[in-house]
């Protein structure tokens, strides 16, 4: 069990990694990445049972995580590296030619910790369900986690998957929607209002939990713990997690503007000032 203070230190370092990685190649997606730092840090440092020292694709006996909104790869890579899946210094290769840290995550370059390619949206819930079904066949009582953007829910395949998981009682899956309310063209309400996601997922037959403070590490840890207690009861579990896009870097917060834009030199310095080095930069 890590203390909240220890997890906070990791959170701060991951934020630094994210802004440095996207700044270095002047591309990538800092906004959504920053919003999901607490979630991924909690998963990999507190919630999941996993072994980063010997990565096995089949993940038998381990909890698994699938990132469906693959564009927030910076946070995923940073958390995987700090968890020990691959050297932290490899973060410096992000999005560069011949890197294993492709713009969107892939298994193609054999990066430890990644089990599926993602980026084209809407596919990760189906994959997570498949992995969860394999666990049931293997009598493996581990849990499968997946993360989705709220804008991503506009993809139809998500609802095919949601219908299936409830109908077939896939109750060893915990999916989370990052409800930052933003997408590329503006707020989700401007682009395509989705109404009540709680009502929608409940109507589809999911056990729905709210996480009001998705950027508060203690709240995230406790909600994930609670979600785990909700597994094995005949329903897939959904966490509706409210976050702030760009969280932890003041000028990136409260707007969709930083979805896919990198900070310039001055903005980077400002962002780093707000998040002092804790575990050492890559």
């Amino acid at each position, binding site marked *: 069990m890590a203390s909240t203070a220890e997890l906070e230190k990791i959170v701060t370092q991951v934020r630094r990694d994210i802004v440095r990685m996207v700044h270095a190649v002047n591309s990538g997606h800092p906004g959504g990445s920053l919003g999901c730092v607490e979630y991924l840090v909690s998963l990999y440092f507190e919630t999941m049972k996993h072994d980063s020292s010997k990565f096995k694709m089949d993940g038998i006996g381990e909890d698994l995580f699938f990132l469906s909104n693959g564009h927030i790869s910076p946070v995923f890579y940073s958390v995987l590296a700090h968890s020990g899946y691959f050297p932290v210094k490899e973060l410096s290769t992000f999005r560069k030619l011949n890197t294993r840290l492709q713009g969107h995550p892939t298994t193609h370059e054999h990066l430890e910790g990644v089990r599926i390619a993602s980026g084209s949206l809407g596919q990760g819930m189906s994959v997570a369900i498949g992995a969860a079904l*394999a666990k049931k*066949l293997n009598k493996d009582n581990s849990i499968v986690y997946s993360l989705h953007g709220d804008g991503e829910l506009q993809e139809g395949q998500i609802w095919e998957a949601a219908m299936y998981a409830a109908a077939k009682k896939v109750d060893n899956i915990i999916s989370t929607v990052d409800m930052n309310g933003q997408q590329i063209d503006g707020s989700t309400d401007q682009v395509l209002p989705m109404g009540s996601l709680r009502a929608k997922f409940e109507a589809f037959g999911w056990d729905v939990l709210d996480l009001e403070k998705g950027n508060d590490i203690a709240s995230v840890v406790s909600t994930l713990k609670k979600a785990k207690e909700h597994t094995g009861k005949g329903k897939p579990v959904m966490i509706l997690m409210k976050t702030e896009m760009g969280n932890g870097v003041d000028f990136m917060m409260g707007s969709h503007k930083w979805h896919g834009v990198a900070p310039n030199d001055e903005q980077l310095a400002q962002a780093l000032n707000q998040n002092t080095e804790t575990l050492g930069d890559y």
Partner: protein
Amino acid sequence: MKKFPYTEKKDTRSGFGAGLSELGKSNPNVVVLCADLTGSLKMDAFAKDHPERFFQTGIAEANMIGIAAGLTIGGKIPFTGTFANFSTGRVYDQIRQSVAYSGKNVKICASHAGLTLGEDGATHQILEDLGLMKMLPGMTVINPCDYNQTKAATIAIADFNGPVYLRFGRPTVPNFTPADQKFEIGKAVMLNEGTDVSIFATGHLVWKAIEAGEQLAAMGINAEIINIHTIKPLDNSAVLNSVRKTRCVVTAEEHQMNGGLGDSIAQLLARELPTPIEMVAVNDSFGESGTPDQLMTKYGLDPVNIVEAVKKVIARKA
């Protein structure tokens, strides 16, 4: 011309079903997914015998492909089943990202391919699937010719680690390949050795090529007939060895000319051994309602069309 005796006509999809049933008994990692076409795909026996390894996804092909990709992560070997149209075009991006690019061991099994689906018409008669699938890096593409070969192919792909597209169809056709013939992925099957022309055929057109070969023999033309059951990887050496001898080529397939077998062979020959080639295939057109036989005739996929193509290509030989 060699004879190819057969005792009955059977559908290739039933060969797939029979292969699945054998795999159900022999390989506990084989799992089967279907999008509401269990009967059409002849998956009923597997579903009945192994309900815990059979996943009915409903009419949701994108989800089916994603679930299949996820099942491989736990060491399973998923076979997905639906019509060829819904197995490819409808789910192209899901196959591209979650299966092919991710290198997942999913077997995409597709029935009712091509015109011989018949009366349902062009919405369901996909003639572009081989092209779509062969363009994906790392995808193996197989189109067997009869019941026995489809059954053997089904069993063989379970032992092959990597994504596979297996295409078969609805009508009954002569079941002439030996029941005990081993299926070797990527290895063409020589049916009749000849010297005047190489006929490369795939799927339902293999039998039509044999019928054409008999007509040609009666005219004194000695055709070499080769069954290309694996479109990708193409058996380059089988093609080149044959063409060095015959110096002209006819290809035959139930598919668009663009993107099909003929296109793969033409590409190989253009690079390695430029040779006159004629293609028996659908020429940039959708199908329509009709009986399978009527459609094959109307769209020019009969033995007579192969014979005409042979005469034409022999005349073009230098």
